[in-house]
């Protein structure tokens, strides 16, 4: 069953001679539980695609459907609520809220939804990501790798249908990068979550189930890893 479907997704900036086609007719499907890596050179449109998938940006044309729900029909408010319930984000620069401690950052999407976190489930994530001892720390006191683990925990906290990761290892050294990717992969397997990850690191891309290559806003290749 496809959890994520895009149909002829386009994002153009500017008009006439200045027109830039950041995405130019991307159609793709991601199956439930799949771990997909999107690769491409700088400016190929991979970040734009991820933003479209997460409803952070609005496409010029085309449609994104997540878990059977079309994003285009939703208003701003509805889209935000859909995002915090069904999509988890992991950003390159972590985007943790500086005034909240680690635990508060992790449960933020759930709290904003007015809900209570599933303690047992959270415990598992926290323990898996090795954050048990850091829960009352402030993000500013953590290393990059630790911050990214918090971001991953946050992305998983609301049991989303889809986790979107934008260069999650972009700011990390190679050892930490391997650890973080390992954690994303393990947690997504364990909690049966679909992951779409952007990276320009071929080695990291190889850890995914499938690699989609983008160039000039178009999908050039989509292949299963061995």
């Amino acid at each position, binding site marked *: 069953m496809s959890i994520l479907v895009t149909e002829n997704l386009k994002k153009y900036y500017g008009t006439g001679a200045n027109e830039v086609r950041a995405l130019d007719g991307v159609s793709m499907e991601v199956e439930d539980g799949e771990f997909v890596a999107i690769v491409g050179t700088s400016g190929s449109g991979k970040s734009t695609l991820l933003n479209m998938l997460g409803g952070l*940006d609005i496409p010029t044309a085309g449609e994104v459907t997540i878990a059977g729900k079309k994003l285009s029909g939703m208003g701003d*408010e509805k889209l935000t609520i859909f*995002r915090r*319930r069904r999509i988890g984000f992991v*950003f390159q620069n972590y985007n943790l809220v500086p*005034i909240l401690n680690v635990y508060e950052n992790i449960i933020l999407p759930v709290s*904003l939804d007015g809900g209570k976190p599933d303690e047992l489930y959270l415990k598992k994530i926290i323990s898996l990501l090795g954050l048990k001892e850091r*829960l009352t720390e402030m993000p500013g*006191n953590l290393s990059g790798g630790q911050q990214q683990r918090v971001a991953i925990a946050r992305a998983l906290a609301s049991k989303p249908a889809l986790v979107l990761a934008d260069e999650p290892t972009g700011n990390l050294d190679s050892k930490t990068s391997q650890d973080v990717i390992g954690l994303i992969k393990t947690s997504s397997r364990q909690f049966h979550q679909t992951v779409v990850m952007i990276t320009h690191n071929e080695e990291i891309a190889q850890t995914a189930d499938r690699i989609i290559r983008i160039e000039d806003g178009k999908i050039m290749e989509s292949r299963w890893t061995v």
Partner: protein
Amino acid sequence: MRRSRRISSNNNRKAVWSLAVRSVKSSKMKDFFVILTIVLSVSLLMVMSLFYVGMNTETKRTVARMQHAIYYNLEEEQLTQMAKDERSQYVLSMKEGQAVEVDGNMVKPAAYGKEPLKNEGIEIDTVTPTKGKIPEKADEIMLSDAYCKLAGIKAAPGETVSFTWLDGTTENYRLSGIYHTGENQPLYTVLFSEAYAREGSQLKEVPWEGIVCFYGADEMTQPAFEELVYGFGDDCGIARKDMNINNFFLDALPGGDMAMQQMMLVICAGIGLLFVSVLVIYSVFYLSVVGRIRQFGQLRTIGMTKRQIRRMVRIEGLFLSALGIPIGLLVGGAVSYVIRPGGWDVVHTLIVAGIVTMADIITVLISVQKPAKKAASVSPVEAAKYSGYTGEEKKKKEPGSRTIKLARKITPTSLAVMSNARNKKKTVLTMISLGIGGILYMLAAFFVTSTSLEGYARQGEYKYGEFVIGYSYNVAETAKQGETQLQKEHPLDEKLIQEIEKTDGVKNIHTVQKLEVSWEAHGTQEEGDDNVRGFSKRRTEKLKDLKHTGDFIYEKMVEENGILFTRGGAWEEVYGWEFKPGDKVKLSWYDGEEEREKEFTIMGVIDAGDFDEEPGDTFTSFLIPEQTLKSMTKGLNLNADLIVETDQKKETQVGKELKNITKQYPYLSLGTLEEQRLIAKSQFTTLFSVMLGLSMFIIGFALLNLLNTLITNILTRSHEFAMLQSVGMTRRQLCKMLRMEGLILAAGNLAVSLVLGTAAGYAMIQIMNYFGVDYMHFVFPVWYFIGYAVFILLVPVLVTEYMVRKFQKQSLVDRLR
């Protein structure tokens, strides 16, 4: 080492300058608010300083056209002697006749000499006609426009007007001109010509007065000037009581306490204002620096030194000052001119502008110093992950203590609280800086609400009732034996009191007994202008509770002809001496049958400011034991005033009834509280409008300050908001959070304004009361505060909505970058 050889100071000044200028241009909203703050602080400082300087200039200009002293009871020879004296620069003769009551209004004849007896290059303002000309012929007069309106006289030169004076003479005059006065004056002057002063029935017998100005007086200190005026009077053979210094002129001279206090007040307010400016500019710059930490990191990476970064931020501040200060100077100058055109002076304005400019540049430099340091201290590595918040040091868990709470409640409201708490010092300072405006506003509001116009109107006898029935001024002044004659011939007896008591709405009648006396002491003689009242043995103890000197015992006073003086501290200025216990005073009075006189010994002096315990106290100079007073007047009914206390709801109706009663007795006059209220109102209208205008200015400042804080706070955190939105915070939740942040600041401001403003208001009223202003009572300005609160609370709500709408236009992705 020579400066030019430092690496950091190789030829890069231009680069730093251009970076700073570009940086300024790139964040227009921040600039707008910094410039606005500078404009506000500069213009407020300008207005405040120029208001003060202008006030002095205006006073100096006014007093430059005013007399320095007036001498009374003069012969023409004395005037001539004054003119001949080389100390005098200007001498003008004048006469003032006896006032008369005309249809309830006091009217007084007066005249100036046609030309000054001496005028060596000075112009004195006397009365300037707004229509027509100054009277020249004996039958010409000039009236005030307000009196013409009151008396139904056509205010046009050429009109014929008739007056019946105190001696019963009725004369017709021709209006030669009209001059201007405000309405509801306690006394109106009818201005005659010099010809009338010499020949006219009302002035020819009256002694002359001399209006005098002295050489070099405006360069003198207050004590030197006083010495000059009294010395000059002595040399011309004038009694001390007949010398009257122009206090307005005296106060304008250096050496007075008032000037010093005013200056201190202005300086304190100025420093307060600069402090607020520092806080606002500091917070704007701090937020702006924090928002650009990464940029500074980049600049450091590519080789900018710490010193250069600091300089760049400082230049940004100075660049914005260069834009803000001139605007502020222009606005402040213009407002000052409009407020006080009479005090405008180019040189003063330039000096003030120079000082204000310096003060504000220093303010800006102090404000940006810390942000600049912060910017310079960023290391390139830190910059990349800088979040502006590193968290507070967590207290180490003590053994056995409870574990730290894992998660606080997270809602938009609690996030707002956390956000304000992230920099407690800054939040508190912001609240205080907002609160200072609030405190000033509350002070103005307290002044307005706590000044009781009713209280002001009720000074003196009206404290005890709404109507005062007494002997007619005209009749008493013309009776040979004055008021005492009326007390004998037409006593305010039980019959009259009962008649008044019958009136519906009359609650009580207070009688005031007094005896008109002349006195002689310390070589000074006063004819019949003072009153003696009796006091009971029972009152003796109460009198001792008041501020007094001398140890008086009732019985001893009866035996040894003792008397109490009740104007302690008030006569020094008039007579140049004060009564002290043990002094002798000779009183003369009419006992109903004959003139009598007797010497008394002052046994106690009661402070004038304290003496207002019973009806009649405020116009009494001496108190005598009742027993003594009875023996002095052979049982004469000494009722002189009946103070009628009424049911307030029926005041108007009672007024009509009392008017009808007093009409039957031509020797009675009726004074009403309503007249006093009108006088109070006309005296306070201007003061209140100035206070309210000032309040509006202060509210404006507080509002802009809040607006500024809120907007910059939102602007510099757009990345943080995008972050929250990306993980699921809805627009509504974001709005709620920001609104709460603003409301917390506003609430802090209101709390500061309420608590400190009320304390300041209370202190102000206590101080005013201490100085004898007893018509001010602590009244909390409920409506003013509610109005202020509504404004201050509404601003965050509107600003947040507007700002969120504005930045929502930019896509979340852009804001996340």
